[in-house]
């Protein structure tokens, strides 16, 4: 920080020079955070808009792709993330109310839940990797939703077969057409990985920031006077939670009723 002798004498150590008061500083940082979240909305928004357009265009393939994902992990992860949102909210509450220990515990709890989420995500990704459902042909074994994949268990993730197996599938569909639909699920998986990938990246960044926050909280930086960092990290974390609240139904729940597994 550059020189700040000119400002008022009895100011809080956290007050930086360009602001006149803690209040101004807090309001500025809150507004800054919200404006940042605005940009985040638009960033995910671009993905959501494209997703919607393709979902209309390739509905069958989206159904086939979506049903090939194991719903229970997505469901569990939703609960985990909601839980972490609650612990995060409590961390902010503790900071506001001057409970230092509470702060620390709740931040740790949030981090554990966040890590659990990422763990589950990694497991899901691995499953998709194993089933040759990674789009493109650079990572993994090349996208191959229609069998012939050298996966450990070939019955897994053969979307082309699923499309033709009753009661959910229709055996009338010629093999070639089913394979075509299966190939089109590549678009679904492109979105699946792009959206959950961007989300997971945000979670990773979030964990990093939480680590920093934890250190500061332990040091006792925050209290009823000054808790903007806790609050802002909270805002970020809740935002990431909200994105997931939408991703879950959009990616996991397309026409599940017809394909209950």
């Amino acid at each position: 920080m550059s020189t700040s002798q000119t400002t008022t004498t009895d100011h809080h150590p956290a007050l930086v020079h360009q602001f006149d008061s803690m209040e101004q500083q807090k309001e500025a940082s809150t507004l800054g955070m919200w404006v940042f979240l605005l940009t985040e909305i638009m960033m995910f928004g671009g993905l959501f808009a494209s997703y919607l357009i393709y979902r209309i265009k390739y509905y069958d393939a989206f159904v086939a792709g979506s049903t090939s994902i194991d719903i229970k992990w997505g469901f569990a992860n939703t609960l985990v993330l909601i839980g972490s949102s609650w612990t995060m909210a409590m961390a902010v509450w503790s900071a506001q109310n001057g409970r230092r220990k509470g702060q620390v515990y709740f931040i740790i709890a949030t981090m554990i839940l966040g890590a659990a989420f990422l763990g589950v995500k990694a497991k899901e990704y691995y499953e998709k990797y194993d089933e040759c459902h990674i789009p493109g042909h650079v990572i993994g074994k090349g996208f191959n939703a229609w069998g012939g994949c050298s996966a450990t268990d070939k019955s897994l993730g053969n979307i082309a077969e699923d499309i033709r197996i009753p009661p959910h599938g229709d055996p009338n569909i010629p093999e070639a057409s089913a394979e075509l639909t299966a190939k089109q699920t590549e678009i679904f998986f492109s979105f699946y990985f792009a959206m959950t990938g961007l989300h997971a990246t945000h979670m990773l960044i979030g964990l990093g920031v939480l680590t920093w926050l934890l250190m500061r909280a332990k040091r006792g930086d925050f209290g009823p006077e000054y808790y903007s960092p806790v609050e802002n990290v909270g805002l970020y974390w809740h935002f990431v939670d909200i994105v997931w609240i939408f991703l879950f139904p959009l990616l996991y729940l397309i026409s599940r009723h017809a394909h209950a597994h």
Partner: protein
Amino acid sequence: MSSANENVMPEKHYLNDNYGIRSWLLTKDHKRIAVLYLLTITFFFFLGGLFASLIRLELLTPQGDLFQSDTYNKLFTEHGVNMIFFFLIPSVPAVLGNFLVPLMVGAKDLAFPKINLASWYIFIVGAGFALAALVSGGVDTGWTFYTPLSSGFVRTPVIAMGVGILIAGFASIFTGLNFIVTVHRMRAPGLTWGRLPLFVWANYAASLIMVLGTPVIAITLILLVLERGFHIGIFDPKLGGDPVLFQHMFWFYSHPAVYIMILPGMGVISEIITCFSRKRVFGYGFIAFSSIAIAVFGFVVWAHHMFVAGISVYSALVFSLLSYAVAIPSAVKVFNWTATMYKGSVELATPMLYALGFIGLFTIGGLTGLFLAALGLDVHIHDTYFVIAHFHYVMVGGMVMAYLGGLHFWWPKMTGRIYPEGPAKLAALITFIGFNLTFFPQFILGYLGMPRRYHAYPPEFQVLNVLSSAGASVLAVGFILPLIYFLWSLRYGEVAGANPWDAKGLEWQTTSPPPTHNFEKTPVVTEEPYHYGTEQEVPVVH
């Protein structure tokens, strides 16, 4: 302009507060960051200008005999990318805006100085990627990166370029975020919204676009890079994707971005016109509000770049109609500026010359935008030189003129010294003449049907192309001159004093150059902006 040498440089100011490379590279002072940006984008302007010169050289003859086709394609792509993303978008906001917004609102700095510095570093990293792409051969997709050409066909470093632009985008987001928070939360006592200088209003409006639009281009470029790098199928028709979707996503940002490129310039014009007419601005509220209107309406017209791209007739209708809506606030501005001069006391100093040039050229450029927004007519002139002429009129005739005008106007504030008036007036004149000679023939070329991005063209277009190339060489002189005399003035220019133009506005109430913390005491605002006519008032200097 005062001539006598009673002006002295202040003893301590932001430039000599600290010395050494570190004090610049680690600075959190918005004024120094503005200077860093100034140096960076000047480099990119001349780089882009170099490519432009080569383009015009090639187009002297119809055969396309100077360069290979691929080389030519790289030239216009690099020209467009450098000029748009690395020069024009940061030009007024990141240089003049960075320098002036805190001064104009009477703050010690922007709300988040660290983020401001980060913005410049991010920009440099982005620029590094772009330059790496250039050095390793250059990209030949056109600045619009249309798929599937860019994702699957060309063999040039598109990924590096895409990543560079995407990173530079975050620099823009950070600048916008900083401005928004600063304007909302750090105005000096008494500085109500109704008293904000129009330059601040304009930058605020542009910031809204940066914050809301830039993330979309970021995600679009990420998808493009993933598609090219990993062959996933979002836009590639081979994999079932829709290339037109890329265009939607690209223009959702890039149309509003043209208003990032003009709004801050409009702000500059409002400041200059009032100062050199010595008058309050005509219709303050309307000018201020029209900036916001442009920013908002600018988001709902993007598909007017796609009238023949295969979009539905109904959405073409909607987007055309809305395009006309966005033209109205621009009209309001032009008329208000003109009216401001009425019964003024007009002095034709260099900044004023640029400002008047801006009004004329922007009017022509904007009105030719109406041709392009007209559905049945755009079918004919889309992707011809008519479009090229249109946007050079608004971007070079408009924004670059405004930027140069602003640089001249605030040069004394930034450096403490005044540029030489004679050469400066000459340069403004040369620029104006050269500009029109370069780009006016292109309107005719376009209507005749000469397609853009053509390396070779039918011989009947040659005469007009030669005129255009001749103009470009005149224009080059007009742009090189300021570079020379600005540098000269750093050393030999007259000392300016705090307020050489006798202008109103908080930035003139501190020393030139200003001290690191801008004001000795937080200023208190009691007057409306542009309270010219109350000349007796003595500026508060040291």
